[in-house]
């Protein structure tokens, strides 16, 4: 495999303090240098992205007195995709008196991540979780409450306590609006300068430090250079490399990928989460997939017909000709096995030809028994909004006919490598939220993404970035600085190239083809043979893109095809790295399942002796072998075990 990558020196997280795990965050906060309030005004920070991780950081840094420049590609910061999160946010408040604690949240998260995350980071996340709820309540986030006026909780997949705070099925929306309002308050106060409809297209590195970005004004097409003393990427995940995912249409990897090309290591890119309960694809025109909250698995029963090619109406298939395969294979967890396991089981039965619905890519999620047991009104009260959403999208009534579901790409655990301070391998470049890799290991638990985004933005970054900024302000720069000029010129050249190819294929058609390759070979199950094939095909497709794509119009206008083309160009490079990462990791862990590494009964098999490390990749050129840097993972507080849900 050496032709695909080379191995470089190991790396280590040098910022995480040693000592008892519950004292490490306190220690780091104390050892990090401070910037006095009068000096903060002289220091500036660029923050790219306004989701939970970006908006919370921008608001908090603005409140602290720094000069913040915030960027988002949407027309308003309130539209970032954190808004779509449904279920909830975890916090170790132990308001239920059910034995929860910071240590238990830490333990559940490390185990759920299949022992591929850092203990120090996860412990800090659990500690900070408590403060997040307080902060959001103070902002007026309307969490669900009980009649006594106190906060309600519910439980979520993979855990045995009720620690999830929620706002009906719109928790992400309410948390994001809270952060957005705090951000707009700082805009009004003049500490944050908001740049909407701006897309970061390049990172500016001067004297080894991240000092700015090149951004395109998406309305006028102007290529702008922006400078600061530090740059923060809070630009989200890269699930759209699969074309179809639960991400918003605009979600992209460009900010992260441009930073990667400038020297930031990309860690564990192959760790992607495929969510089991999404509405299946209905045709080739499909543009995105919609998630149905996994809470449905509490009462719905998942099945397929026992016989292949059974085309009968599901209601006419008698009980003894149905295969409730999760209940059969995993009798103790049944329909509530973790996300990765439920997804792969659905793929397996469809591969056997027993899938249902158009193209045979679906399984039934049946509420007939629940309706019999609880009565329709109770089911309506619990799941009504989800049933309505399903009916709106599919035109089928789930109270009458079983729902059809299928797994879909949902979240990416991989991302830019960061140390304990959330600083990447480029000094002055910090990465927060889904864009970094640090807290979820190889699999993320439900209701933990919101927790991490807000932990990073409200509490972690504002306490660690000071230590870097204490050395500033750095030399003043402008667009004539050679590194800035070079970066802006390269952006212009790339845009000119995209507009001049004038080939035969639309951006979307190439993006769809890339998505098919990734889904087929780097999706729920990966194999050496498949991944090698995928790498060859991605290289060919990249070649085709740069010679045969058709992008109309010009740069100096709102040009949505041009925006998409730039993003797809970067996905075409990322896809290759994901396959190389998946190929080199010859074990199964969390969301990464290698066909060659399974137990006798088909379960994921980790190889802790060989692969208990973070794979941090260094860029060496498009299509050139990247360099692998390993960061060893050590577990002092949680014993490494193979997961079992049987």
């Amino acid at each position, binding site marked *: 495999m050496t032709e695909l990558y080379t191995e470089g020196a190991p790396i280590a997280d040098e910022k995480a303090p040693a000592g008892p795990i519950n004292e490490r965050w306190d220690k780091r906060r104390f050892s990090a240098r401070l910037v006095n309030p009068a000096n903060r005004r002289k220091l500036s920070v660029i923050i790219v992205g306004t989701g939970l991780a970006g908006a919370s950081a921008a608001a*908090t840094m603005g409140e602290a007195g720094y000069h913040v420049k915030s960027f988002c590609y*949407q*027309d*308003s910061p*309130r*539209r*970032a*995709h954190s*808004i*779509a999160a449904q279920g909830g946010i975890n916090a170790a*408040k132990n*308001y239920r008196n059910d034995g929860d604690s910071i240590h238990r949240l830490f333990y559940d998260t490390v185990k759920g991540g299949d022992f591929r995350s850092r203990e120090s980071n996860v412990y800090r996340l659990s500690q900070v979780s408590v403060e997040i*709820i*307080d*902060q*959001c*309540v*103070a*902002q*007026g986030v*309307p969490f*669900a*409450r*009980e009649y006594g*006026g106190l*906060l309600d909780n519910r439980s979520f997949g993979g855990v045995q306590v009720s620690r999830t705070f929620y*706002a*009906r099925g*719109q928790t992400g*929306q309410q948390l994001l*609006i809270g952060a*957005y*309002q*705090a951000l*707009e*308050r700082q*805009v*009004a106060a003049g500490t944050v300068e908001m740049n909407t409809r701006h897309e970061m297209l390049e990172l500016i590195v001067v004297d080894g430090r991240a000092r700015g970005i090149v951004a395109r004004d998406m309305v006028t097409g102007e290529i702008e250079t922006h400078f600061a003393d530090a740059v923060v990427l809070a630009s989200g995940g890269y699930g759209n490399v699969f074309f179809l995912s639960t991400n*918003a*249409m605009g979600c992209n990897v460009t900010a992260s990928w441009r930073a990667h090309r400038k020297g930031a290591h990309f860690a564990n890119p192959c760790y992607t989460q495929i969510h089991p309960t999404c509405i299946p694809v*209905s*045709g080739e*025109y*499909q*543009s*995105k997939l919609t*998630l149905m909250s996994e809470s449905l698995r509490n009462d719905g029963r998942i099945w397929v017909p026992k016989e292949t090619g059974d085309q009968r109406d599901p209601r006419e298939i008698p009980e003894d000709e149905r295969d409730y395969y999760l209940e059969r294979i995993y009798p103790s967890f049944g329909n509530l096995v973790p996300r990765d396991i439920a997804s792969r089981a659905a793929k397996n039965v469809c591969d056997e030809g027993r899938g249902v619905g158009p193209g045979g890519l679906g399984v039934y999620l049946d509420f007939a028994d629940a309706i019999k047991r609880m009565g329709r009104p109770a089911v309506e009260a619990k799941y009504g909004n989800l049933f309505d959403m399903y009916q709106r*999208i*599919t*035109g089928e009534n789930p109270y009458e006919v079983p729902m059809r579901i299928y797994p879909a790409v949902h979240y990416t655990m991989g991302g830019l490598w960061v140390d304990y301070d959330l600083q990447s391998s480029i000094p002055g470049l910090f990465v927060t939220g889904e864009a970094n890799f640090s807290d979820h290991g190889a699999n993320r638990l439900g209701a933990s993404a919101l927790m991490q985004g807000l932990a990073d933005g409200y*509490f972690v970054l504002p306490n660690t970035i000071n230590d870097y900024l204490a050395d500033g302000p750095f030399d003043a720069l402008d667009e004539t600085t050679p590194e800035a000029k070079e970066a802006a010129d390269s952006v212009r050249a790339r845009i000119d190239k995209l507009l001049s190819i004038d080939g*035969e294929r*639309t951006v*979307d058609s190439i993006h769809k083809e890339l998505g098919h390759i990734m889904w087929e070979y780097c999706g729920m199950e990966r194999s050496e043979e498949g991944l090698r094939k995928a790498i060859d095909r991605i290289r060919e497709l990249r070649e085709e893109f740069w010679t045969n794509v*058709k992008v*109309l119009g010009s740069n100096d*206008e*709102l040009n*949505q*095809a041009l925006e998409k083309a730039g993003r797809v160009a970067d996905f075409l490079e990322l896809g290759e790295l994901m396959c190389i990462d998946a190929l080199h990791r010859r074990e199964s862990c969390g969301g990464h399942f290698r066909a060659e590494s399974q137990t006798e009964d088909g379960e994921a098999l980790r190889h802790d002796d060989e692969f208990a490390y973070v794979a941090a990749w260094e860029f060496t050129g498009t299509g050139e072998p990247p360099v692998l840097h390993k960061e060893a993972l050590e577990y002092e507080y949680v014993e490494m075990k193979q997961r079992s849900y049987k």
Partner: protein
Amino acid sequence: MNITLRVWRQKGRDDEGRMVTYKVEDVNPDMSFLEMLDVLNEKLTLSGEDPVAFDHDCREGICGACGVVINGVAHGPENTTTCQLHMRSFKDGDEITIEPWRAKAFPVVKDLVVDRGSFDRVIQAGGYISAPTGTAPDAHATPVPKADADRAFDAATCIGCGACVAACPNASGMLFTAAKITHLGSMPQGQPEREARVINMINQHDAEDFGGCTNIGECAAVCPKGIPLDTISQLNRDLLGALASSKPE
């Protein structure tokens, strides 16, 4: 099914717009409305014609980015967001007219894309609770009666899409403003700034050239999130109270 579209095309903010007719064939009833526009755009691109620009992002009805006027109704016939409208709501041979939101406070950027920055500025004027990070008491320090929390939540579900403005004959942004006033004003945390908030937000609303509210109710009729019209009554009550005690900042 085969559909005829009449679509508003406008090159830029200061250009003149016009309606252009396109035929879209073999439309699948299970397609979403925006997927039907995707198909049109693929076809236009291959034939060398500039694709139609429209705002959209999450395509699951929550981000508020999408929104066009379909046959004269904001977001079309199903009382949902444009992205959640499906072609099964139409029939073979239909002619569908598609226009951008039209309001002085929402200038057209291109084709069906408008600038809704005025909404952000209304929020900047006071649509928040001042609670800097790190200053919060324990979340259970202040119980909130469930009825108040539910009322706040119902108002807080506003997605800021702007359909209320597009539907209003006065192009008023009152439902949007009232939703935020009601959300924050229903919570104990929102009380200290309640009077200043309503005055400052209304002043900004007017400065943005939104029209006045004359209680027509078209806004609530098209709102995809069902923001109730009585939030505007709440706003009016708060405003009267605030003006009477006259201590705006």
